[in-house]
């Protein structure tokens, strides 16, 4: 028993040290592109930490969004900003300022660490309440229960935030390009190996994404995880030139983008009539309703995430 504990502790210590080392390197390295590569590695390691914290649901989201999609977003930005004039030495703060900043940041970290150590010992938890009320939602995964039922309003508003962010990104387009295709022109002759991968991977990815949505009702997984995977697969096809991004003016695209929040709101409003409040589900239909919302959400999440990475419209569709 003690051996197992020691090994587990050594594993966790190694993991924590590696995460911090990669984070430090990401901050101090000179080259931006290399720092982003470090950031993707960081995201992957943080997903491992989430597994060690017994939160596989979060680990999936972190792996998909934290490392994967955010990484690709920042990589694209780093690549496109490469031709742009970088900061000069004069813009770096001086040594004194850096030392003072370092000391202040260390103080913030120390305060957080102290708070961490002084937390009350029988930790307060809502797990028993969640477990007690989970049966009324019909789903078996407590995280899905929290996201879709207990704190459904948070999830709904978060979807609205996603759509607002996309509107924000699109509104950065030049007037002449409004309604056009997002992202820069891709070269016409992508690598054959890349095309092969982009043909092979998306079907598998779609199956796994749908599987994660389906299993998310009772096991770790759900609309976020599935949607992020679908977004990654769509982006992969776009990178290989197999799928053109849709013009942002497309009505069908906009329908997909708002489908998730719209279905959520509609079922939420129906809650006034069928149950007793906004976003309340009638008990007998709770699980099917949650799954319907999740399917719509997954499609909207996938489309929104991919288009957020693709960026504002920059060229008109070829006519």
């Amino acid at each position, binding site marked *: 028993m003690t051996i197992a504990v020691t090994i587990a502790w050594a594993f966790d210590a190694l993991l924590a040290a590696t995460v911090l080392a990669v984070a430090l390197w990401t901050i101090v390295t000179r080259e931006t592109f290399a720092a982003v590569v470090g950031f993707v590695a960081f995201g*992957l390691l943080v997903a491992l930490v989430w597994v060690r914290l017994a939160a596989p649901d979060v680990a999936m989201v972190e792996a998909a969004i934290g490392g994967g999609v955010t990484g690709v977003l920042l990589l694209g930005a780093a690549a496109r900003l490469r031709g742009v004039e970088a900061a000069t030495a004069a813009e770096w703060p001086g040594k004194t300022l850096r030392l003072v900043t370092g000391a202040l940041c260390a103080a913030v970290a120390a305060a957080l660490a102290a708070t961490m150590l002084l937390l009350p010992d029988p930790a307060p938890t809502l797990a028993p309440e969640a477990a007690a009320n989970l049966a009324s939602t019909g789903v078996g995964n407590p995280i899905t229960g929290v996201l879709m039922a207990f704190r459904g309003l948070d999830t709904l508003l978060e979807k609205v935030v996603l759509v607002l962010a996309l509107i924000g990104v699109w509104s950065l387009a030049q007037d002449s390009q409004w309604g056009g295709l997002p992202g820069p022109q891709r070269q016409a002759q992508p690598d054959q190996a890349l095309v092969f991968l982009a043909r092979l991977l998306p079907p598998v990815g779609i199956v796994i994404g749908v599987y994660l949505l389906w299993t998310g009702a009772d096991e770790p997984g759900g609309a976020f995880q599935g949607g992020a995977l679908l977004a990654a697969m769509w982006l992969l096809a776009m990178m290989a030139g197999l799928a053109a991004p849709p013009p942002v003016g497309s009505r069908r695209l906009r329908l997909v983008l708002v489908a998730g929040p719209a279905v959520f709101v509609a079922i939420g409003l129906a809650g006034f009539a069928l149950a007793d409040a906004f976003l309340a589900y009638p008990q007998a239909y709770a699980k099917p309703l949650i799954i319907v919302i999740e399917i719509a959400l997954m499609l909207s999440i996938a489309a929104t995430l991919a288009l957020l990475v693709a960026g504002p419209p920059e060229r008109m569709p070829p006519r």
Partner: protein
Amino acid sequence: MAEFLLAAAGFVLAMVALGLVRILRGPAIADRIMAAQLLGTGGIATLLLIAPATGMAATTDVALSLALLAAFASVAFVQGTSGPDDPEATEGR
């Protein structure tokens, strides 16, 4: 057995963490991408080994999504390296 699996997971993690020194040293961007690729594979192996060691079956699903996303990220790295001529082609207008 659980101890062995966890120890093996720790060993693989230690190895790929050592491999990260390549991200640090470079020198070429290809070397950095390789280190990230190795970390991806090693991370997946670590997850697969942790799953039976801790009895959290969902860990395998994490590995599954990671396997897809590691490939995706590597492709994006390679695309990013061919970036410098990309913006000029579009911004030149």
